[in-house]
């Protein structure tokens, strides 16, 4: 493999296996993730896609009885074996979930939360980060006059964009999104999708989605998981026009899964 290819990869996962107790949930996953690309992960429920995405910032370690083997190289460091600063990892690999989950605090404090934890104290710096993060998620104009009101007063779509802003505030390299629009109305969904396309200029994004049209609209690469295996990983256009594996074809055309 050439160095050029290596430097393009932010994650390089080799022979990753994961067990929940006796249940073998991820099987021999080999998965390179390129910088500033959007990688979509699709597959039926229980296929391991959420498990996989949670290994990338080791959120998976919060589940009891998880055992992993193999390598997850993040910027050249194997996060499974090396001495690792988990806080640093999660600062660099942010995550948003199905439903916006703002802290029961003000809009401002939600976004400032991460930078504060990482030692940012001066108001002028925090103001700058909050403004920039909210602008990045196209929420600024909607909330600039009520930054100190409760975040839980925002609509579902706004809450989700706030959570993305909160993740961006620590200046991560990678943004993990686990079904980020599954609880949103169609317009809020499209806003998030537009946002993903803008964010990929600066960030690497991995998105788990049940919405195949969404995967085809926003991603550069698509990975199809089935029963813990990575069946196919290819450019999104290939996956949706001419997939190599008939199980991928069956799933994306809605004939099984």
């Amino acid at each position: 493999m050439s160095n050029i290819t290596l430097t393009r990869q932010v994650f390089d996962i080799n022979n990753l296996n994961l067990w929940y107790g006796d249940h073998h949930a991820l099987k021999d996953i080999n998965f390179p993730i390129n910088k500033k690309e959007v990688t979509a992960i699709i597959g039926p429920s229980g296929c391991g896609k959420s498990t996989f995405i949670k290994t990338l910032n080791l959120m998976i370690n919060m589940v009891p009885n998880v055992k992993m083997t193999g390598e997850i190289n993040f910027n050249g460091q194997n996060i499974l074996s090396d001495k690792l600063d988990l806080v640093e990892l999660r600062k660099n690999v942010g995550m948003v979930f199905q439903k916006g989950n703002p802290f029961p605090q003000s809009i401002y404090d939600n976004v400032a939360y991460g930078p504060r934890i990482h030692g940012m104290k001066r108001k002028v710096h925090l103001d700058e980060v909050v403004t920039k993060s909210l602008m990045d998620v196209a929420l600024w104009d909607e909330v600039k006059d009520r930054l100190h009101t409760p975040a839980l007063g925002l609509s579902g779509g706004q809450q989700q964009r706030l959570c993305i802003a909160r993740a961006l505030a620590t200046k991560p390299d990678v943004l993990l999104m686990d079904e980020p629009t599954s609880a949103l109305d169609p317009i809020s969904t499209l806003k998030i999708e537009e946002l993903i396309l803008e964010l990929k200029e600066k960030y690497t994004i991995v998105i788990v989605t049940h919405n195949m049209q969404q995967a085809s609209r926003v991603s550069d690469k698509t990975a199809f998981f089935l029963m813990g295996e990575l069946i196919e990983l290819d450019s999104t256009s290939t996956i949706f026009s001419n997939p190599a594996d008939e199980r991928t074809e069956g799933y994306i055309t809605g004939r099984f899964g």
Partner: protein
Amino acid sequence: MTYMSTRSNFDNNLKELKDLLLKMASKAETAIKESMLALVNQDLEKAQQVIDGDNEIDDLEYEINDMALLLIARESPVATDLRKISAALKVSSEVERFADIAVNIAKSALHIGKEKHFKEIIDIPKMMEMALEMVSESISAYYAEDITLAKKCAEKDDEVDKMFGSLVQELMSYIPQNPNATNQIIQLAFVCRFIERIADHSTNIAEDVVYLVTGNRVNLND
């Protein structure tokens, strides 16, 4: 792999689309045959019928297009499903060209009118027979999604091209001895050109079939 019938309605719609195209192709094929009979037998009434019947084939093409677009909008098809719909759109446009060619041949028959043929027309129907084989094979290959048949069809294109070359040369050579038949001879040369186009459109359909089945684009016209 057997799939749960999660999309049986969509599958039925795809089948209907294909059946509609088969119906259109069969009408176009008939139109071509009728136009040839009109030309050979100088049957001007039949020629006019072919021209008048073209609307019906055009309407079928619109119907196929509307249904294909509706399915794209409604079902968000991907992979093979999307290629099936794309093929229906492309093949229907080739079939529409078959019908237009039938009209062109019928018009040539009208141009020649009742003027006595300067020579018995034997080779042109032979060339047409070969082109019609290609039409029928290309449509069968589309319907059965049969690449082997598609390739077999495309192989005949060279032969039709050769016949075209020699027939046109032959026709031109008659002009000096038959100056009064010049119009007729030119019309017949046009007809040869039309038949050659039928073979080309059949080859295009054969290529569409290969793409439909394999997802790979090929040029069968080399």
